[in-house]
Every structure is written in C-alpha cells, then in structure tokens.
C-alpha cells in the first residue's frame, strides 16, 4: 500500500531523515521506534504531506505522493494523529471530530451526517461522552489523544499514522489501546505506529522498523528487533520500560 524509497529530510545542517526505505502492506501494522530525535515524526510528516522530502520517493496505492500538500494526501486516504496536540483549541471534541468527517476521504454529506458519524466514532474510541461539548483546550492529555484518533478515523483513511497515541496512559489503559488499534486494523486499515511504550509496540506490531540518527538500523519481527544488540544499546537500555 505504501512504499517509501530513499527518503531524506535535510533541516539546515541536520539530516533528520536519511535515505529511509519502508513498506506497509494492506492490513498491516508496522511499528516505528528509535531514540528521541531519531527522525520518526519527521518521517511521518513527509508521508502525510506536512513537510516535503529533500530527496526520495513516496508512493501510496501505486501513486507518487511525495511533496503533495497535506490536504490532498488526506483525501487520498492517509490520516495522522499528532504527537504534540494543538489543533483547534476552541472547537469542542465533537466539532473537532466532525472536521475529519466533513473533510476526509469520502466526506460526510452534510452537518447532520457528520455529527452522527463523529458521535459514533467518539463512542467507539472510548471518549467520555459527557465531555463531547468541552473545548479541546480544556481536555486532559488522554482525552485529547482520543479526540485526535477520532478526528483521524472520521476521515475514513486507508492508512492511519499514529504518533505516540498511547503516551500518558497507564498499563491497563495501554492494554485497552492495543485492543482498540487491532480493532481498527480489522476494519480493513493499515497502520504505522510510533510509540515508546514497548508493551504497546510489541502487542500490536506485525513488523517493527528502528530509526537512529535518521537512518534505518533494524527491521523485522518484534522478537527479532528487541533482541538486536544495536537496538538494545541505542534505544531499549537495560531497564526495559515494559
């Protein structure tokens, strides 16, 4: 479904992403991990059109999308949640999700339909519905994450990019998030997920890709990657935060 070849992002003197190859198949969940500052968010930003690659190619369903604007890429069926949430501080949780429903891949026909779809999605991701009319800026971190996921799902993506969605959840809530992510995949979506919580990454990923200093240093099944000495030395350390 997604095919990334030799993608590079130069920011001033820093090569934040350097010649990365990455594939995501239909219905696949791929985990993306690596040290802080490795270039994971930068790579997702290029796939979703938030930034333009300096070099390389990104094809989605057979079509080159590298360098297209974010709105066009969203309409082609790629949606993203943000690591640092700051969109629409004054909209309510429901309105924010409606934006996704109205805008996305197969946009809702009108406000009434968008409201209906948005409500159903907020419920499905476990958002506390008594807060559906609360302004985004007054939500706590966990609620914000759920709204982000709802907004992304409301655009009916084929490929969902999740940037640290489960950060800030306790182990029990993370377990629930793992189930939720699997359910989303079972609805016929592919997922690329960045996460530092290894129990989540290990729980959902079919395959894991590891970046360090902008380069891909390892790739494979979860158990292969967590036993890779270079990954242990640069990323996992001796105190696995499982």
């Amino acid at each position, binding site marked *: 479904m997604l095919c990334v070849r030799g993608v590079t992002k130069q920011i001033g003197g820093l090569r934040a992403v350097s010649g990365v190859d990455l594939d995501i198949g239909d219905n696949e969940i791929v985990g993306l991990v690596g040290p*802080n500052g490795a270039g994971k968010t930068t790579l997702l930003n290029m796939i979703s059109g938030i930034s333009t690659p300096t070099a390389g190619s990104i094809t989605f369903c057979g079509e080159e999308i590298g360098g297209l604007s974010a709105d066009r890429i969203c309409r082609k069926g790629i949606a993203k949640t943000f690591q640092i949430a700051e969109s629409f501080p004054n909209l309510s949780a429901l309105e924010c999700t409606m934006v996704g429903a109205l805008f996305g891949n197969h946009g809702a026909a009108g406000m009434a339909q968008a409201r209906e779809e948005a409500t159903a999605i907020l419920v499905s991701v476990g958002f506390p519905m008594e807060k559906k009319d609360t302004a985004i800026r007054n939500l706590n971190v966990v609620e914000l994450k759920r709204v982000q996921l709802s907004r992304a799902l409301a655009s009916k993506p084929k490929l969902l990019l999740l940037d640290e969605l489960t950060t800030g959840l306790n182990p029990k809530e993370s377990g629930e998030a793992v189930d939720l992510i699997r359910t989303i995949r079972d609805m016929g979506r592919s997922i690329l997920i960045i996460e530092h919580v290894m129990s989540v990454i290990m729980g959902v990923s079919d395959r894991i890709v590891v970046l360090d200093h902008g380069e891909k240093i390892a790739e494979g099944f979860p158990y292969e990657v967590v036993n890779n000495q270079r990954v242990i030395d640069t990323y996992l350390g001796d105190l696995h935060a499982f």
Partner: protein
Amino acid sequence: METVAGLNRNASGSVTFLGEEILHQPPYGIFRKGLALVPEKREIFAKMPVVENLLLGAGANAGYEKTLEHVYSLFPILSERKNQLAGTLSGGEQQMLAIGRALMSEPKLLILDEPSTGLSPLLVGQVFRSLEQLGREGMTILLLEQNVRHALELCHRGYVLENGRIVKEGKARDLLHDPQIQKAYLGF
C-alpha cells in the same frame, strides 16, 4: 499539583510548604521558595532557544552555571541543540527540556507530572536513576506517573488518587504488591 504550584486560583483548603501557607500565593512566589514543577503539557517557550528556556528555570540559583553543566550531562542533546528554538525540538527532546528547566533552580521540592512521557525506554531508565540520585542528595521529589511499576520501585511512599480523592496511601513497596492496585493499574 497545579494547585500546589499556585496555578489554580480558586482552590480551598490549605497547603503548607516549609511551614508556611502557600495556597493563595502567586506561582512565582512559590517557585522562589524552592518548589519547581515539570508540567504535564511541558509548557516550554517554543519561540525561545533551548538555553534561554533553561536559564529561565534558574530563578535565584547563584550557582546556575554548574547546574546547567549538570543538566547538559544528564541530557547531552540539549547541549548540542542549545541554540535551537525549543518548539522545533522532537517530542522527547522537549520533555528533556521541561525536566532540565525544573532542575535549574535546584529546588527543595521537585514535582514531576508524568516525566517519562515521550522518552525512549533507555532515557526513562536514565531519568529514574537520576531522580533516585537527586533524592539521595537531599531533594524531595513528588512524582506523578502512569508508569506505575517503575514509580513505585523508585519512591518511598505513594498515594493513589482516583476521581479527585486519595483512595489509598502507604509504603511504595506495599502498594506495589497490593492486589487491587495490581489489577487496576498494572494490568494483571
């Protein structure tokens, strides 16, 4: 914790710090008395360079240059990026900055709201070990964590807050082995 740090104006009750009532004091006054907070949402100054964010955290600490060296040794990337605008740092780098800024004043009481958020497993380990070290050197630490196991392994005592109420408190070791807590928070 925001109430303790003076960020919540309409709270009632009482908070004493070093024997003095601080509930209705302004946040900068509480900070000057020696209480520093690592906020959950980080609240870094996005349009300012890394080093200026850190210096702002120093407050009245006369020995801030030495503390800055210590923060840089804890998080070398902050030293490499000292002139980068804080808002362009990666998520985990911003978290390091928020922790580093709170350390800059060498507070008597350090409150950390989910410090492990967004850090790599390697760095979570490092940060927790540093907190242990700071504790041994005499700093008092209040740690809010969803990383329940590691938090309880590090701390002496713990409180469990549910829906705005303390529902349990005790020695961290006892809480770690409490079946109810294991079920509710550790996912057993």
